């Protein structure tokens, strides 16, 4: 290879920075500026004094504690189920049976479906005269429809949201895990087989430990997005189940108070950062896969 050219391509010191400039400038204006502005809105009144007033009002709101509770409950319930389901899907597809590629893409399908649409899809199942009640009726299980979504059955309403979110967002976990599985060197698997590890043993002692970085990034990504669950809940359960992102939306959209809406957003950010930190700390490894 021409040494001069190598030099030109490899140490062309300024060109890459010029290419990054638009992205950096855009992030500066449309990410960093709003980020700072959100913190200012949450902590400073219109007259310019620093205040905790907006957080006080946020916490004092009758829906706040429920929103906090349900946001956490949703994340804690959905994410583990998703990881287990996605792992099962990924391992199945990874066996490379005939037609596995087709099923891989099929399992990834919900990736293109929005949270709002997923909420509406599952509304058609769980609504009063929806598919679930119809099926139960035709099976002779019930005579009158069950109110899956109502203030009287908050537990069932919550379950409906869990099912919808699980259906929609498991695909992303599966894609991350399949990508992780493909990066595992065949040598390890062959060595494991030579040493007598088959079936479950191979999965438990060889594949899962090697898949840990992917599992970790899947956990972090999914938890952060689960904390932001919003449109699924709104479309499926209306305001029966309050969540933090929904409260931020209502405070801005209905009550036109961007200070308190920002307080909710800042709280969500704080929780996301704390959760990520917790995962990194307790799972004791770095973000290898996120770094790529």
């Amino acid at each position: 290879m021409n040494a001069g050219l190598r030099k030109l391509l490899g140490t062309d010191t300024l060109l890459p920075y010029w290419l990054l400039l638009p992205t950096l400038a855009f992030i500066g204006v449309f990410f960093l500026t709003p980020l700072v502005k959100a913190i200012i809105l949450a902590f400073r009144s219109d007259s310019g004094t620093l205040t905790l007033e907006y957080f006080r009002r946020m916490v004092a709101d009758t829906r706040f504690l429920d929103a906090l509770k349900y946001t956490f409950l949703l994340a804690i319930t959905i994410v583990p189920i998703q990881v287990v389901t996605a792992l099962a899907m990924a391992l199945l597809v990874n066996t490379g049976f005939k037609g596995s590629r087709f099923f891989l893409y099929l399992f990834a399908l919900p990736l293109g479906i929005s949270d709002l649409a997923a909420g509406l899809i599952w509304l058609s199942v769980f609504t009063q005269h929806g598919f679930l009640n119809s099926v139960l009726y035709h099976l002779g299980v019930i005579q009158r429809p069950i109110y899956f979504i109502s203030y009287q059955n908050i537990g069932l309403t919550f379950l409906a949201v869990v099912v919808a979110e699980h259906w929609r967002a498991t695909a992303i976990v599966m894609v991350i895990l399949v990508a992780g599985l493909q990066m595992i060197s065949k040598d390890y698997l062959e060595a494991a087989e030579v040493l007598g590890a088959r079936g479950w043993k191979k999965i438990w002692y060889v594949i899962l430990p090697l898949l840990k970085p992917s599992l970790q990034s899947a956990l972090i990504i999914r938890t952060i997005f689960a904390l932001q669950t919003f449109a699924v809940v709104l479309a499926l359960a209306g305001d029966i189940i309050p969540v933090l992102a929904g409260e931020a939306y209502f405070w801005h959209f209905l009550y036109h108070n961007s200070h308190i809406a920002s307080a909710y957003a800042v709280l969500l950010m704080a929780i996301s950062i704390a959760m990520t930190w917790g995962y990194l700390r307790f799972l004791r490894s770095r973000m290898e896969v996120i770094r790529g």
Partner: protein
Amino acid sequence: MSFPYLLRRTLLYMAVFSFAIWVLIPIVLIGISAFTPKNEVYAWPRPIIPSHFSLETMSFFLHSYGVVRSLLNSVWVALLTLAFTLAIGAPAGYAVARFRFRGREGFRLGILITRMFPTALLAVPLAVMYLKWGLYDTLIGVALIHTAMALPFAVIITTGIFMGVPKDLEEAAMTLGCSRFGAFARVALPLALPGLAAAAMFTFVISWNEVFAASILTVNNRTLPAHILTTIQASPLYFRFAGGFFMILPALFFMFFIRRYLFHMWGGATAER
């Protein structure tokens, strides 16, 4: 200890088909709902398959006030987002793929971290800032925040795409007299085109599906998801089902085309082997 081969195969396919049914059934059901005659969704006992399929529900949805306009808004916002995102993000992806430079890893990590922040954290303050900038309730304003949300993915995907185009080809073009830009435009770009098209479709889907920011940043110029969300409490069930079905159609269509590229996003591994 090990199962007989046939039994193992049967179990494998049973598990795979159960998952496939779990994924597909809700999509089929919303399709059925969207073509069920309007009043049958309120009937009890309700047949699972409607008495007849009808275009009544879809036609009601498309003729409802504001739907066609928000639909056109959605398409326009998604196209703007796509143009902004690729114009801004693809050069960065090319830089990360082709050059070793100081801050490269920091940039890659930093851009991913931006996606980790809650949408509310950007949308609420941007609504306040947009009022000052004259961007509030404009399609460009929505497209700009969608660009901020899609940019990390675009950079990561285009990095993967340009890494897949051999550097040697560009170098060869340059020894044969092409300029740096010429080599890129005549050699790397055509080879990267299918991947870039996939990145474009992915960006389109991100914007088409986004609802939180679009609802907060608009009043009259709503996108389709924002229109559906803000009128959801007041709209009849059949309107919501038709809306749900209509929203997933283009998304599923595009996902089919970009299926192979999904894996570019995560760790650079591709589905192709």
